[in-house]
């Protein structure tokens, strides 16, 4: 009987005594799909007869295995957007993929504490006023100390410095146009307030997006061996290619050296670490003599200890601000609120300890503050708005 033979071959395999011929015979049987039922039945029968393990099990390994299974369908909680949005979904996919790679078992415990609902004061009592989102606002400080407010300036040539014209374009961005390199080079500084962001085209054609509460100091013409600018806060760069003339960003003690490439530098001093995220090309990130090279899709983080750590990251999350979104991947409440502080020019205080919860998903930066806070409230946290002071209530 073939059934008997199959059982015998599998028993031999289980005993560890099978001969090469017996192994070959089993393989031959396996190749024929017609034998599936016999093989399945034999495997099941042997399973019923299998003796229990006498040695104690490796409990830690088992627990880890169990968690990998039940963790497979734990997903990042989604912060719901008020308006339906195609674009955000695309960005969210990218975030979801990264999240998928980091197993969510740890997250499970972070998400465990659930706010038990106390009577909640009505929205109208808690939201005394609303606050408009930030917009395109910046101040340009020229070498002679004179200042041009860019959100009010008319759409034409703002000024001329040496041989460089400063032109404000239709969409509000500022373009530097160098007509010759004979005049002495002077330095300008573009500064965005809290609640402002701005786009700028440098004399070499490099495009810079400056996030809120940031500044960029740059020359009116790049005449030397390299193109050096100084950044505070956060900026996204699309560097124009100029062979043999590297572009250098100095930010909070770090040097980012590039040729032609797209990258984001987040150097807010109240964040945990300076982060350089590379979208295209290659950059070198250095501080205090240590240098690390980044590949596209990677992020370098420099903490206060001066260590440079490089990891793969969701680049869309890093440049979401430039595309008009806040995107969070398991961010804690203080991280979320720091971004809101800069964009809505608000001051955030916590009634008790900041609630232990994580936020994932996207929200439009074009929403008013109350719109944003209402979305966050769906996750169980409550806020109070009084003037520009926002209180995160004890949950």
């Amino acid at each position, binding site marked *: 009987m073939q059934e008997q033979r199959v059982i015998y071959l599998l028993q031999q395999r*289980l005993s560890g005594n099978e001969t090469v011929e017996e192994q070959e015979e089993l393989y031959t049987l396996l190749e024929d799909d017609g034998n599936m039922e016999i093989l399945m039945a034999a495997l099941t029968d042997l399973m019923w007869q299998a003796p229990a393990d006498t040695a104690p099990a490796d409990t830690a390994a088992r627990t880890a295995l169990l968690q990998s299974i039940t963790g497979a369908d734990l997903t990042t909680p989604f912060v719901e957007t008020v308006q339906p949005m195609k674009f955000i979904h695309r960005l969210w996919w990218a975030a979801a993929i990264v999240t998928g790679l980091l197993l969510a078992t740890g997250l499970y415990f972070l998400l465990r504490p659930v706010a038990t609902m106390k009577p909640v004061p009505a929205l109208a009592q808690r939201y005394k006023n609303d606050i408009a989102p930030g917009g395109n606002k910046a101040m340009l400080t020229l070498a002679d100390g004179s200042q041009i407010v860019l959100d009010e300036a008319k759409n034409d040539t703002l000024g001329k410095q040496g041989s460089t014209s400063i032109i404000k374009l239709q969409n509000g961005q500022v373009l530097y146009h160098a007509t010759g390199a004979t005049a002495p080079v002077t330095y300008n500084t573009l500064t965005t307030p809290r609640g402002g962001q701005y786009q700028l085209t440098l004399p070499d054609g490099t495009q810079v997006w400056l996030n809120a509460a940031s500044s960029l100091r740059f020359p009116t013409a790049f005449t030397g061996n390299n193109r050096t600018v100084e950044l505070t806060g956060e900026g996204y760069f699309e560097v124009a290619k100029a062979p043999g003339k590297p572009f250098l960003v100095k930010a909070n003690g770090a040097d980012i050296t590039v040729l032609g490439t797209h990258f984001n530098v987040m150097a807010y001093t109240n964040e945990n670490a300076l982060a350089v995220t590379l979208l295209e090309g290659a950059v070198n990130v250095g501080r205090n003599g240590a240098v690390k090279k980044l590949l596209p899709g990677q992020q370098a983080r420099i903490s206060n200890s001066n260590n440079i750590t490089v990891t793969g990251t969701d680049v869309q999350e890093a440049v979401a601000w430039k595309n008009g979104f806040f995107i969070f991947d398991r961010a804690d409440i203080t991280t979320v609120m720091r971004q809101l502080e800069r964009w809505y020019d608000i001051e955030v205080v916590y009634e008790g300890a900041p609630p232990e919860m994580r936020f994932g998903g996207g929200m439009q930066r074009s929403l008013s503050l109350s719109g944003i806070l209402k979305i966050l409230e769906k996750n169980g946290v409550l806020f109070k708005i009084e003037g520009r002071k926002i209180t995160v209530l004890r949950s």
Partner: protein
Amino acid sequence: MHDNIYIDKLLFQRISEGDEAAFGILFNTSLTTLEPFIRKMVKSPENAKEVIQATFLRVWLSRDKLADIDHPKAWLFKVAANECYTYLKKEANEYRLRGTAAVTADDADTATRRLTLKELHTVIEEAVMLLSPQRRRIYQMSRNRGMKIPEIATELDLSPNSVKNALVFSLKAIREHLRRNGHAIPLVYLIFICR
């Protein structure tokens, strides 16, 4: 066998409601016999781990169906036998292709299976994102916060039945999304075989 008393209909009923502790009991008690068997059958602890993972992932992702199963232990063994069979078939194929004993191909095999688990998680994450906001909310309250059906019903002011239906729908949607992405969970036919 003494563990028979644990693998019963009541346990499956609890798992079908998303009770992780009940699933843990099933996992640990059945591994007492399943693990040594699978380890000897696939000839290495690493491969055994992958087979066990695949077996219990199937069970977990089909948990909404478990309440309908009449012979829980027979059913579980059938799922495990199916995973062993799949593994052996792959080993046989590799043996023919390489002309070497499949044991040497263990590393490559393990790597592909691990990648699959990661992909699986990504696909599930996608499937949950594609649910309607209400269903997603209910699903995540159940999974992420470990809330029971009546608790979710109270918090969202819904009937327990609509919550249950939403959870069943969500699991179905997840399996469907997995199937579209090449991770079939063909358990339905097994349920009928075992009846």
